[in-house]
């Protein structure tokens, strides 16, 4: 429901895919317990009577997206809303989002946000949103198992081969699942983000280059080749990749010490094996779990010639064009991403990488992994293209990995992918050569 000004009172609404007692409960709590009272208070101080209401939600991202689309299409929905970074393109094209108002240029936060992260919020050169945060991907490993397999506790592979070798050793040492790199469609986007995309980047490739889909180039074939090696040599568990709840399971297995090496984002550290409130708590996380950067295929072969790679995503917070009070809405939006706000949000037990360097500096200090990511990984990272067709391409990628894991050759799977991408792009001519 778009805001309606009742008398002098300005009513604002804000929505996220977060809900108390459920998904992203801490964000919901932040909004209701901190943002709303503080913001209302601040506005009152300015002489404005503003009432903010939080509209929680707690469902699959697809369903959240569907509802946002329907709301935006009908001129309804909250004044301030969170979206996933990669939805921005299609929302803009559908006319659901408008560039941020002019007042946004003056926002103090921009100066604190790294260029790359700012890029998340831009489409065709215009800013449509503020970034809410970002993340990065690493290889986690179980030091106990590594030691058992005769590998160093501060393991850092420099090439894919070293990963495979470590896997082989782990296997010999009796680790049930030496390596877990997500594959297949059941894991959905997790396969892309924590699997095929970082691997492609490691082979020097991207899904989209200069606005054109890349199709089945050598990088993809290399990435698929690695999948083949892992899953055909018994270094990974192909079944797990197909299970509907496979990702949950991989978490549980890692926590139980059944997986040697796992490629995941920082969420894994924060939310899964977190000894306090993770879904698969590891009491001895800090001692047992090691992490390493994702190596390129071979040193220097990675994206932009890097030795190491990563992928990042992030959510955006934006304005509803139908908002009756765009000015106040932007103030609310900015308020949620103020330094104080972010500190409050990430304060206790909810540390994450915020978009703001000033905040990060302060809050990440206590967490070695997040510091590691923000300092070592983020400079190397890459983002997915925020365009409408990306989900379809991503699905095609996932299908290619699924095919390889279940025995198709990388070349065949790549050819199939090529065909699909041509279909999505509307002809072979539209692909990057």
């Amino acid at each position, binding site marked *: 429901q778009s805001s309606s000004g009742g008398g002098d009172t300005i009513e604002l609404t804000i929505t996220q895919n977060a809900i108390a*007692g459920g998904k992203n409960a801490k964000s919901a709590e932040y909004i209701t317990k901190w943002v709303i009272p503080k913001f209302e208070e601040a506005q009152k101080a300015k002489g404005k009577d503003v009432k903010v209401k939080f509209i929680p939600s*707690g469902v699959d991202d697809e369903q959240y997206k569907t509802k946002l689309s329907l709301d935006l299409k009908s001129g309804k929905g909250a004044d301030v809303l969170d979206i996933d970074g990669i939805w921005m393109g299609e929302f803009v094209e559908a006319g659901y989002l408008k560039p941020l108002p002019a007042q946004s240029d003056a926002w103090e936060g921009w100066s604190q946000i790294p260029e790359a992260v700012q890029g998340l919020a831009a489409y065709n050169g215009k800013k449509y949103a503020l970034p809410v945060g970002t993340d990065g991907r690493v290889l986690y490993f179980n030091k106990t198992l590594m030691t058992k397999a005769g590998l160093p506790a501060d393991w850092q592979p420099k090439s894919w081969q070293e990963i495979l070798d470590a896997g082989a050793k782990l296997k010999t040492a009796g680790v049930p699942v030496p390596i877990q790199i997500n594959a297949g469609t059941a894991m959905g986007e997790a396969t892309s983000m924590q699997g095929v995309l970082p691997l492609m980047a490691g082979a020097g490739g991207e899904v989209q280059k200069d606005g054109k889909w890349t199709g089945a180039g050598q990088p993809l074939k290399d990435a698929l080749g690695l999948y083949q090696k892992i899953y055909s040599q018994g270094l990974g568990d192909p079944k797990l990749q197909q299970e509907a709840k496979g990702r949950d399971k991989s978490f549980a297995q890692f926590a139980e010490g059944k997986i040697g090496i796992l490629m995941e984002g920082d969420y894994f550290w924060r939310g899964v094996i977190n000894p306090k409130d993770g879904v698969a708590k590891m009491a001895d996380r800090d001692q047992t779990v090691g992490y390493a950067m994702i190596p390129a295929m071979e040193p220097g072969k990675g994206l932009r010639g890097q030795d190491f790679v990563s992928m990042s995503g992030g959510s955006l917070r934006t304005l509803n064009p139908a908002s009756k009070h765009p000015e106040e809405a932007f103030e609310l939006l900015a308020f949620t991403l103020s330094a104080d706000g972010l500190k409050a949000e990430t304060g206790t037990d909810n540390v994450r990488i915020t978009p703001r360097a000033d905040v990060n500096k302060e809050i990440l200090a206590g967490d070695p992994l997040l510091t590691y990511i923000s300092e070592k990984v983020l400079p190397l990272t890459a983002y997915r293209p925020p365009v409408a067709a990306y989900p379809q391409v991503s699905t095609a990628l996932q299908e290619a990995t699924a095919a390889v894991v279940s025995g198709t050759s990388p070349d065949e799977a790549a050819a199939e992918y090529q065909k699909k991408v041509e279909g999505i792009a509307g002809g072979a001519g539209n692909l990057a050569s």
Partner: protein
Amino acid sequence: MSPGQVLGRIGFCTLIAVLLAFFSVPLLWLATAPFSADPTYQVSLPDFTLANFQAILEHPYALGSLYNSLILSVGTAVLVVACAALAAYALSRVRIPGRDALLYTLLLLSSIITGTAAMVPIYQLAVELNLIDTHLGVILILTGGLLPAAVFMLKDFMDTTPKSYEESARVFGASPLQIVRHVVIPLVRPGLATIAVWAIANVWGNFLMPYLLFSSDPENQPASVIIYTLYTEGGQANLQLLSTFGLLYSVPVVLMYLFVSKKYGFRFHGGIKA
């Protein structure tokens, strides 16, 4: 007993035992997990705790959502039963040309409406009619989807009631509406009850429509939506909450079924026959 009968008896008992197992084993989890401190997908004797229930009670939306489910499902059931009963009665008693074709067509169309493809038209329709964010909107839309099958099934109940009851009332001077109220409705009450349970069960489990049509306040969301929020940030099921809420969420329909089947008998009266 002859050997044949003994064999038959053994066969019967085995079959029943297998059936009972087939239908009850999947339910075991619901009986144990809510009482486990750390439930997994495994069915095991719980290390008994009521902490999960405590957690659900403290959940901001859980109990309210059950209430919402109740409003939606009872509202829909009442509307479906009332409209379908009247329509089924009329269709059963008066020959309308093309009646059967009409029913079949509607039945087929109702399958489109329950699909995901219809969400945009339905959403926009609700927007146009100002039904967004209202229980009434969800009730009306769900009613529209359930009505054809309800009319179809109820018509058969109506067909199997002897017409002498109505004629008798008519000779005494009762008006058609009086006849329906005094005679027809009581006679087909088991049928109405069955359809009501069917409608309630349908609405009780429906996720998409309430989710889409209540956009502004989760306080209005029914349990079918809230149960999907019991996941963690990364999309992992929170089994403690989920199993417990699942149990609470199931209990009302089970109670309702038991009540109805005790009071009216849960059955298809003469059976549905085309």
